[in-house]
C-alpha cells in the first residue's frame, strides 16, 4: 500500500504499466490459453475418487436377471406405440400397475413461441405416465427418479422395457429406504419439464399441465435412460445440463464404479478414455474430450432430460446406449445391473449428494480438473482487459493532468472537469443505442414473426432466424447514426472513454459468466478479448474490423459449430455449417422460451451491446 500511496513511486509504477502494457497483455493472454491447454495434462488433471461415505465402502450385489422380460416389454411398447401413434398411456398404466406400482398420469400442453422445425412441433400436448414404488418402512420423504423420455418416433422403446423390468425387480425387494419414481415422459424434454414443474408446483416456462396426484417427497437423484437397441456396445454418459449446470461429481463416480464392476464399455462425449497418461497421446486425447465438454457446456443447452432436473437441485445424469460396429456387445441385463447397482447405492445415501465437486471439467471419465485449477485460465484472459483498462484510465488522466504539470496553465481543474463531463455525456448515446439494439434483438424476432410471414415468403421459424440476423447486422450501422448525435471536443478522449467503459463492461460480464459457467466465459473471453483490446479508430482499420466481426458472438457460435463437428470427426462443409448455424439460432431462442436457457438473453442483452460498443470505438470520428 505504501508503494501505491507514495506519489513518486506511484508515478513510476504507472509509467511501467504504460510502457510495458502491450507485452504484459500479450503475455497474460498467452498464459491464459496455455494454462487452458495444459488442463488435460496430469499435474492439473486428477483421478476421480468417491467422496461420499455412504456410497463408497459398501458394495452391493446386483441380482437383476430380467433381460428377457425387458425385451418383451419393449416389443409390446413399440407395437402399441406404432398402433396408437402416441405414447400408449393406457398400456403403460396397466403394465406399471401389474408390476405393483402406484400409477399416475399427467397431461400437459404447450404452444411454442414459433414452430420448431428440427423436432417438427408447434402445438404440443402429451401425457406423462409415472409409477411410484413406495419404500416399505420410510415415510415418503425422499425419492429417486428413473426417467425415460419418449420422442415422436418409436425410439427409446428398449429403455421403456428396461425401466419396466427394473420396476418389477425392484418391487420385489425389501431394502428400499427411498421411494423410486419410474417416469415415462412424452415429447422428450418438454414432458420432463412439464412433470418437474408440476412436481414442484411452479410455473417457470408457461407450461399448462394438469395437477400431480401422487408425490414422493424431495427427489434426491435422478437417472435418465436412452436406449434404442436390444444390445449396446457402449454406454455414453452425459453430464452437461441447462445453463451449464453440472451434477455432483460423485454421481458420475458412481456410474463409473459400476462400469468398471460390470466390465461395461463407458464413454464420455462419445470418446473412450485414454489408457496411457504418461505419454503425449493420452493427454492429447483428453484435451479433445475436454474441448468437446467445454463446447457442450458453453451451449447452455440441456443435452439430455437430466439437465432439467439440475435446476431443481436434483443431481442427475443421462445414460445413452450406443450400438456401433464394435464386436463385443452387452445385453440389457448388463445395463440393468449397472442401473440396479446405482440405485441401490443411491438408496444408501443419508444426505443428498454434496460431498464432491459441483464445478469441474472432464478430460476423461476417470479424470477431472477442479475449479481451483481451471479458474486461472479465465483469470489470465480477464487480466488483459484489466490491464488495458488501466492503461486507458491513465492515459485519460494524463491527458487531463498533463498540461497542469508541464506548463502550469491557469485553471486546469475546471477545464478537466468540464472535459470529463462532456466525455461522460458523449458516452450516454452509444450506450443507450447499443442496449436498445440488444433489446430489439431479444424481443423483435419472436414478436414480429407474424408480420414477417405476411410480407415475405418464409415460414415462422425462418422469419425468426432471418429477423435475428437482420437486426444483428443492422446494429453494425450504428456508428453512422451516433456520431451525428455526439459532439466531441477532445477527439481522442471520446473514444478512449467509450473504450474504457466497454472494457470494464465486458470484463464484468465475462467475470460473472465465468463464475457460473466457466466454459462459456472462457470461450467468449478467448475470442472477444484480443479484438476488444486492439480496437481503436486509427491504424489498420479494415484489419481491426475484420477481426471484430470474426470474434462477434454470432461468429463465435458459427466457429464453435465447426470446431465441434471437427472434434467429433464429422467435419462440416460450409453450406452444412450455415444450415446448422441457422437451426442453432432457432434452437437457442426456443430453448430460452421453453426451458429457460439463458444463453440467448445473455448474448442479446449483454454481450452483443457490449460488442457494439467496440464497433463504435472502431468507427469513431
Amino acid at each position: 500500500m505504501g508503494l501505491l500511496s507514495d506519489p513518486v513511486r506511484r508515478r513510476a509504477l504507472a509509467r511501467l504499466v504504460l510502457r510495458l502494457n502491450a507485452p504484459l497483455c500479450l503475455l497474460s493472454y498467452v498464459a491464459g490459453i496455455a494454462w487452458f491447454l495444459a488442463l488435460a495434462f496430469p499435474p492439473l488433471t486428477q483421478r476421480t475418487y468417491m467422496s461420499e461415505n455412504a456410497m463408497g465402502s459398501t458394495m452391493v450385489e446386483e441380482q437383476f436377471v430380467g433381460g428377457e422380460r425387458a425385451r418383451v416389454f419393449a416389443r409390446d411398447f413399440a407395437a402399441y406405440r406404432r398402433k396408437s401413434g402416441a405414447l400408449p398411456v393406457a398400456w403403460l398404466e396397466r403394465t406399471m400397475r401389474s408390476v405393483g406400482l402406484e400409477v399416475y398420469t399427467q397431461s400437459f400442453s404447450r404452444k411454442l413461441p414459433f414452430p420448431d422445425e428440427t423436432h417438427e412441433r408447434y402445438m404440443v400436448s402429451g401425457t406423462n405416465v409415472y409409477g411410484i414404488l413406495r419404500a416399505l418402512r420410510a415415510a415418503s420423504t425422499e425419492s429417486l427418479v428413473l426417467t425415460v423420455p419418449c420422442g415422436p418416433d418409436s425410439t427409446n422403446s428398449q429403455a421403456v422395457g428396461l425401466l419396466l423390468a427394473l420396476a418389477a425387480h425392484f418391487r420385489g425387494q425389501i431394502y428400499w429406504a427411498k421411494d423410486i419414481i419410474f417416469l415415462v415422459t412424452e415429447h422428450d424434454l418438454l414432458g420432463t419439464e412439464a412433470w418437474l414443474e408440476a412436481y414442484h408446483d411452479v410455473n417457470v416456462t408457461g407450461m399448462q399441465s394438469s395437477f400431480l396426484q401422487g408425490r414422493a417427497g424431495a427427489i434426491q437423484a435422478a437417472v435418465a435412460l436412452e436406449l434404442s437397441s436390444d444390445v449396446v456396445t457402449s454406454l455414453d454418459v452425459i453430464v452437461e445440463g441447462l445453463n451449464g449446470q453440472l451434477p455432483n461429481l460423485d454421481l458420475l463416480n458412481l456410474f463409473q464404479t459400476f462400469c468398471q464392476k460390470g466390465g461395461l464399455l463407458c464413454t464420455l462425449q462419445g470418446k473412450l478414455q485414454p489408457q496411457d497418461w504418461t505419454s503425449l497421446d493420452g493427454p492429447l486425447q483428453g484435451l479433445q474430450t475436454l474441448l468437446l465438454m467445454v463446447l457442450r457446456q458453453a451451449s447452455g443447452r440441456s443435452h439430455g432430460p437430466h439437465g432439467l432436473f439440475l435446476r431443481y437441485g436434483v443431481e442427475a445424469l443421462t445414460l445413452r446406449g450406443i450400438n456401433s460396429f464394435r464386436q463385443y456387445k452387452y445385453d440389457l441385463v448388463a445395463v440393468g445391473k449397472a442401473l440396479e447397482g446405482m440405485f441401490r447405492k443411491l438408496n444408501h445415501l443419508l444426505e443428498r449428494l454434496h460431498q464432491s465437486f459441483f464445478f469441474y471439467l472432464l478430460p476423461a471419465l476417470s479424470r477431472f480438473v477442479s475449479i481451483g485449477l481451471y479458474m486461472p485460465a479465465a483469470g489470465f484472459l480477464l487480466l488483459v482487459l484489466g490491464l488495458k483498462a488501466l492503461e486507458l484510465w491513465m492515459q485519460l488522466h494524463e491527458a487531463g493532468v498533463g498540461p497542469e504539470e508541464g506548463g502550469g496553465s491557469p485553471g486546469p481543474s475546471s477545464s478537466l472537469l468540464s472535459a470529463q463531463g462532456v466525455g461522460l455525456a458523449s458516452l450516454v448515446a452509444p450506450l443507450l443505442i447499443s442496449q436498445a439494439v440488444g433489446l430489439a434483438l431479444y424481443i423483435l424476432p419472436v414478436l414480429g414473426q407474424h408480420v414477417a410471414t405476411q410480407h415475405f415468403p418464409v415460414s415462422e421459424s425462418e422469419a425468426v432466424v432471418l429477423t435475428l440476423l437482420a437486426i444483428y447486422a443492422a446494429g453494425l450501422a450504428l456508428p453512422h447514426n451516433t456520431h451525428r448525435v455526439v459532439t466531441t471536443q477532445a477527439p481522442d478522449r471520446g473514444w478512449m472513454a467509450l473504450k474504457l467503459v466497454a472494457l470494464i463492461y465486458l470484463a464484468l460480464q465475462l467475470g460473472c459468466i465465468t463464475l457460473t459457467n466457466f466454459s462459456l466465459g472462457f470461450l467468449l473471453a478467448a475470442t472477444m478479448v484480443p479484438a476488444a483490446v486492439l480496437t481503436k479508430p486509427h491504424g489498420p482499420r479494415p484489419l481491426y474490423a475484420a477481426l471484430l466481426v470474426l470474434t462477434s458472438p454470432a461468429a463465435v457460435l458459427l466457429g464453435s459449430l465447426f470446431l465441434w463437428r471437427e472434434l467429433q470427426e464429422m467435419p462440416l462443409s460450409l453450406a452444412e455449417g450455415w444450415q446448422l448455424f441457422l437451426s442453432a439460432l432457432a434452437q437457442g431462442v426456443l430453448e430460452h422460451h421453453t426451458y429457460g436457457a439463458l444463453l440467448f438473453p445473455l448474448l442479446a442483452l449483454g454481450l452483443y451491446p457490449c460488442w457494439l460498443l467496440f464497433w463504435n470505438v472502431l468507427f469513431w470520428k
Partner: protein
Amino acid sequence: MVAARPLALLVLLLLGPVGQAEHPRDSFREELVVTPLPSGDVAATFQFRTRWDTELQREGDTDHYFLRYAVLPREVVCTENLTPWKKLLPCSSKAGLSVLLKADRLFHTSYHSQAVHIRPICRNAHCTSISWELRQTLSVVFDAFVTGQGKKDWSLFRMFSRTLTEPCPLASESRVYVDITSYSQDNKTLEVNPPPTTTYQDVILGTQKTYAVYDLLNTAMINNSRNLNLQLKWKRPPENETPPVPFLHAQRYVSGYGLQKGELSTLLYNTHPYRAFPVLLLDTVPWYLRLYVHTLTITSKGKENKPSEELSRKPDPPRSLCYIHYQPAQDRRQPHLLEMLIQLPAHSVTKVSIQFERALLKWTEYTPDPNHGFYVSPSVLSALVPSLVAAKQVDWEGSPLFNTLFPVSDGSSHFIRLYTEPLLVNLPTPDFSMPYNVICLTCTVVAVCYGSFYNLLTRTFHIEEPSTGGLAKRLANLIRRARGVPPL
C-alpha cells in the same frame, strides 16, 4: 396402498369424565382384526386394553392449559420400538394374541403404526372414582407383492410365522375378527378356514361391515387341533378394481425450488358426492421456516375459500372458515402454530398454501447431517365425516375394542383424525469442510484489502512543497521554541 408413516407417539392426557358405565376392575382385553384390502394386501390391527384402579391425583375439571401437543416428525421404525411396548402387556409375548408379535415379520410390512393411549375413566355415573385405561394398538399392512410372492391368499402362519395356541390366562376377552364384508353375500369368492361360529355386524367408518369372530376363550376353538391357524383362500381372486377412495384424505408437499423461499401446500380431498363438512387443520411448523401469514390462501374448486366473502353473503353458518388461530414462532423457543377450521365443499379439492422463507441457522445449530434436510411435522386433520349408513348408538363396553377407536357422535357421522406425510425441507447449508474455512479466510483478506484499495483509488495525491511561511509565523515559532512548545 399406504406408505409406512413414522411412528408418532401421542400420549394424550385428557383429564375429564369420559365414560359413565360401571366397569369391571382390573381387566385385560385383547383382539386382532384382520382386513383383506381390495389391493390384495392384508391389514392386521392388534388392540390391547388394560384397565386398573388407582388413586392418582386428579384435577376437578379439564384444564386446557395443561393440554400439550408434541410431535416428533421422524422416527425410524425398528425393533426397539416394539420390545418395551410388548413389555406393557400382561402376558408379554408368551400367550394370547401377542405370540404373533414377531419382530422380523412385523417389520417386513409396508405400513407400521404403533400407539399407546392412556386415559382416566370414570368408574360411576357421578365420577367419584376413576380407573385408568392403557390402550395399545399396533397396525400393520402386509404387502401381497413382497411377502405373499404375488399370491393373495393368506394365513396367520404365513403372515406372522406363528399360530395361536392358547389365550392369555389374564384376559377377560380374547378374540380374532376377520373382515368378510364384501364376500358374505356370495360365498363363492372366498373361504375362511376354520369356518366361523359367529359373525358380528356393525357400522365402521360409515360403512356396514361383517366380521367372522373367533373367540380364543372358547376352548373348542383351540382344542380341535392344538392350534388355530386362520386361513383365507380366494376362490375367485378380486380383479384389479380401483380401491374405494375414502371421503377424506389429504396430501402435503413443499413447492418451489432454490434455498430462499418455498411454499407449504396441503391438499384436502372431500370425495363425498353431496355433503360438505368442516375440517380442523392443525399445523406446527419449526421456527426456521419463517411463515408469511399474509400469503395464506385457501382455494376450493378454483375459488378462494375466504371467510369474509361467505360471511357477507350468508350471515349464518355454514361459513367457509369460521375459526383461525395463529401463534407466531419465537426463534429457538417455539414453533409456529396454525389452526384453522375449513369448510370442504362436496366433491372438491381444497388447497391450503402458505409461503415461507428459509432461515439461516447459526453454524452450531445444524444437525450432524445438515444436507439431509430438516423435517417438518405432519399436519393433523380432525373431522366429523358423514357416513353412508347411519350407525346406532352402542354400548361401549359390550362392543369390540376396534369399534371404540372411531367414536360416533350422532350416528350420521364419524370422527376421523388424519396425519399427512412429514416433509423434508432443505435449509441453506454452508459447506462444513476445508473449503468453507478457506472461503471464510479469503473473504476476510479480500475485505481488508478492499478498504485500502478503495481508499487509494478514490483519493488524489498532491505533493506539498515545504514552504518557509511568512514573517509572522517565523516570529511565532521563535517564541514557541523559547517557551519549549512544538513549532507550528
